[in-house]
């Protein structure tokens, strides 16, 4: 019981819920799976591949974690919103522009929801999107080389949480304001919330060939907090659903003041109607300032375009574009079952899981079964749209995923468990504890038309005593459960980076064969590339010196550079001439105050170094590349400002 109390003290509603019997609450170091059988089922022998890739959000690290399942092995941390000195992402001249925003260069964000691109409601393995919550952004990562290819800022928005969920064929990826703000921004009293604050639902068009994102339109909504989203599928294909809380429109102590209403709303957005209203001229262009950063596919150099306007569609000017579905108690997640008919809400303060019916919703709209209107948006009658409620699921339902076998799995934050229930009779089938306080959960393909099922992964908020302690700051944690049988079975705990908000999991077979092993040197279009040692060299332009360096096992060309002066800006453009799999080279020089470079075969990367003292300074390859890696080094002679030492570098044949 003391253990229960300890966990209880971490509950959102701490004191209140600590008094309740906490069914299924964690018992600390309870037997894990406790059987050799479980070990066998997660064991991937050395040299063998995992069956699935799992992509998890890096949370406040701003990155994207890549794991293999069922082993839980960390494969890679992909830099997305945060600088990464490991490979110079966000430091190198080629990648810096990826982190530009209308607020300037922002080297971090809070990333929450990875979302795989889909075709026909099934992940197609082309791209994965992830949202930046703090400075509203959406990133697109190319899954052929696992590199961030594009980041678009979402203007007029705040707290980009209900993002970047995609429609069934990746027509759109969406964004929304979790924290309503004056729209457009203005200097107004905070107490004028009800009058001035609004929410925005942003639809970002994704080009089906290139993946390029562009903001199509932004729908102006009442000033609630739009929290999470999922798009429809099959019959509900043309719709996107967004949960909201704070329909009370409180502007202080939301913890209490936004928790008063019995019901808040799910906004059901008919995006094809929005398209029609925009085409009919019912929207207007408004000034905006937002960064659109794209990594050029050919030069591998990122650039920023500062955009100047967006298309704003006021929901009340476009009949039929949005309906509110009343939903109990500050709903968090909204999840659509594989058939596209059932819309499951995670009323995080509710004692039941409400399930809406899409077909009933359509009928209610036809019948005008409205209970009223809020800010010009019709509110449908709860009784007319609800398909059922799951009774006694546990406490604090947040998110639901599906196994494709007629079952739903809902995460229960307060009672720290996963509840499995039936999509036919809404009866609870099984509950299993999580350690501790599960947030999202993830089933391979669990939010798509054709879930692969097999496992559910719990993405936990609290780790406590599950691993060797590492001071007050503990690792984050996920857990793997087998769901192939009637009962869920815990197989594995594994640590994760950042905070693992959401994760998406895809069979490895979809991605493995698409992987690029090297970049083709012959197609390197970086303006400062040296495609052979003969093209290496140094040039001076005032106080700027460009050094074109080549790397190949196990030497740089040039490796002696003279004539650099204190205070010069020295651009080291390093081209890796290798065309062999897994032979990156690195570059670093004494006093480099930004980051080392890591250059993949066939690639060019540039770092700027400003020497601040006279001397002869070594540079070297930072990635152990070969038997003679230690020999892969050189020197730069730095002379005083105005010195007569000529600029020179030893390039064979020059």
């Amino acid at each position, binding site marked *: 019981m003391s253990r229960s109390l300890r966990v209880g003290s971490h509950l959102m509603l701490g004191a209140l819920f600590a008094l309740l019997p906490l069914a299924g609450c964690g018992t600390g170091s309870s037997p894990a799976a406790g059987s050799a059988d479980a070990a066998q089922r997660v064991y991937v022998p050395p040299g063998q591949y995992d069956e699935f890739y799992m992509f998890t959000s890096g949370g406040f690290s701003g990155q994207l974690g890549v794991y293999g399942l069922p082993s839980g092995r960390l494969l890679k941390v992909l830099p997305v919103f945060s600088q990464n000195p490991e490979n110079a992402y966000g430091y190198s001249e080629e990648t810096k522009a990826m982190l530009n925003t209308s607020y300037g260069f922002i080297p971090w964000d809070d990333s929450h929801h990875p979302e795989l691109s889909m075709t026909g409601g099934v992940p197609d393995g082309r791209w994965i999107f992830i949202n930046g919550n703090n400075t509203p952004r959406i990133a697109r990562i190319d899954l052929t080389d696992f590199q961030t290819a594009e980041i678009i800022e979402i203007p007029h928005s705040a707290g980009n949480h209900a993002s970047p969920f995609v429609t069934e064929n990746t027509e759109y990826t969406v964004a929304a304001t979790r924290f309503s703000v004056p729209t457009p921004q203005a200097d107004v009293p905070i107490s004028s919330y009800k009058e001035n604050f609004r929410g925005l639902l942003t639809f970002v068009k994704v080009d089906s060939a290139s993946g390029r994102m562009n903001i199509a339109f932004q729908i102006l909504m009442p000033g609630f907090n739009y929290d999470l989203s999922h798009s429809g599928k099959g019959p509900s294909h043309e719709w996107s659903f967004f949960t909201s809380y704070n329909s009370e429109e409180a502007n202080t102590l939301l913890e209490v003041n936004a928790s008063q209403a019995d019901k808040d709303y799910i906004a059901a957005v008919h995006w094809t109607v929005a398209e029609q209203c925009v085409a009919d001229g019912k929207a207007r262009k408004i000034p905006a300032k937002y960064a659109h950063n794209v990594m050029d596919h050919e030069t591998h150099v990122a650039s920023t375009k500062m955009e100047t306007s967006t298309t704003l569609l006021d929901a009340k000017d476009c009949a039929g574009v949005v309906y509110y579905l009343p939903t109990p108690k500050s709903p968090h997640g909204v999840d659509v079952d594989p058939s596209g008919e059932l819309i499951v809400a995670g009323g995080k303060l509710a004692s039941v899981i409400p399930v809406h019916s899409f077909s009933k919703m359509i009928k209610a709209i036809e019948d005008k079964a409205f209970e009223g209107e809020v800010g010009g948006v019709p509110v449908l009658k709860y009784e007319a749209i609800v398909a059922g409620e799951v009774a006694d699921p546990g406490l604090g339902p947040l998110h639901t995923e599906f196994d494709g076998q007629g079952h739903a799995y809902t995460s229960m934050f307060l009672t720290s468990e996963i509840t499995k229930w039936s999509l036919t009779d809404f009866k609870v089938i099984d509950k299993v504890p999580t350690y501790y306080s599960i947030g999202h959960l993830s089933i391979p393909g669990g939010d798509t038309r054709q879930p692969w099922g097999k496992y559910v992964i719990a993405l936990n908020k609290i780790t406590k005593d599950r691993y060797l302690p590492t001071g007050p700051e503990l690792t984050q944690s996920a857990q793997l459960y087998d769901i192939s049988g009637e009962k869920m079975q815990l197989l594995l705990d594994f640590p994760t980076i950042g905070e693992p908000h959401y994760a998406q999991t895809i069979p490895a077979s979809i991605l493995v064969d698409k992987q690029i092993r*090297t970049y*083709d040197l012959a197609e390197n279009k970086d303006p400062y590339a040296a495609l052979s040692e003969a093209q290496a060299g140094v040039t001076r332009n005032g106080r700027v010196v460009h050094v074109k360096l080549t790397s*190949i*096992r196990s030497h740089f060309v040039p490796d002696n550079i003279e004539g650099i002066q204190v205070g010069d800006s020295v651009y080291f453009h390093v081209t890796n001439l*290798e*065309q*062999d*799999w897994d032979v990156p080279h690195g570059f670093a020089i004494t006093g480099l105050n930004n980051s080392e470079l890591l250059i993949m075969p066939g690639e060019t990367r540039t770092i700027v170094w400003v020497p601040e003292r006279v001397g002869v300074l070594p540079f070297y390859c930072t990635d152990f590349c070969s*038997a*003679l890696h230690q020999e892969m080094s050189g020197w730069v002679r730095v002379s005083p400002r105005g010195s007569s030492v000529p600029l020179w570098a030893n390039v064979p044949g020059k």
Partner: protein
Amino acid sequence: MSRTARLLVALAALSMAIVYLQPLWHIGLVAPQYPEGLGLYIAVDKIVGEKKQDLNSINNLNHYIGMKVISPDDIPELQYMPKIMAGLIAMGLLTAALGKRKLLMAYAGVLLLFSLAGLADFYKWSYDYGHNLSPTAILKIPGMTYQPPLIGSKQLLNFHATSWPASGGWVLIAAVTIVSVLAVRAWRRPQAIPA
């Protein structure tokens, strides 16, 4: 020559044209850090990597032990071999057309001679690459040379090297064998084949 023999010779000669499409020989290299392997295909007119970058990679690795760069442009055999092959095919068709017994035997002789010369040339080429090492090689191991096997497999430092005919090579071997067998039969039973 019987009708069947003439037809077989014609088919054998024509099948040799496959060398313009398929490689003759394959050299494979596998090492602990190259589990996926590196490979070279030797064709009548070119040497190419098994995977796009393999030739580059092999050349880059060879610089450690001081081997010369394999540069297909500098190998004269790749220039004249296609012409010789054309001649051999033409001679085969001529043999089939004329149906002369002596011509058949001469053709078999030429093919066998050509095969032996080809193998000898390949041996000489690989001997030169494997033995003629740069005096400033990074890695010098006393007594070690790097000639790949003429045929079969061999351990070369961390690499396990294999050398076998490739698809075009097997067809060539089959064609030479057929012509040779027909020639031997013609030689043993001259009366069976009208002059």
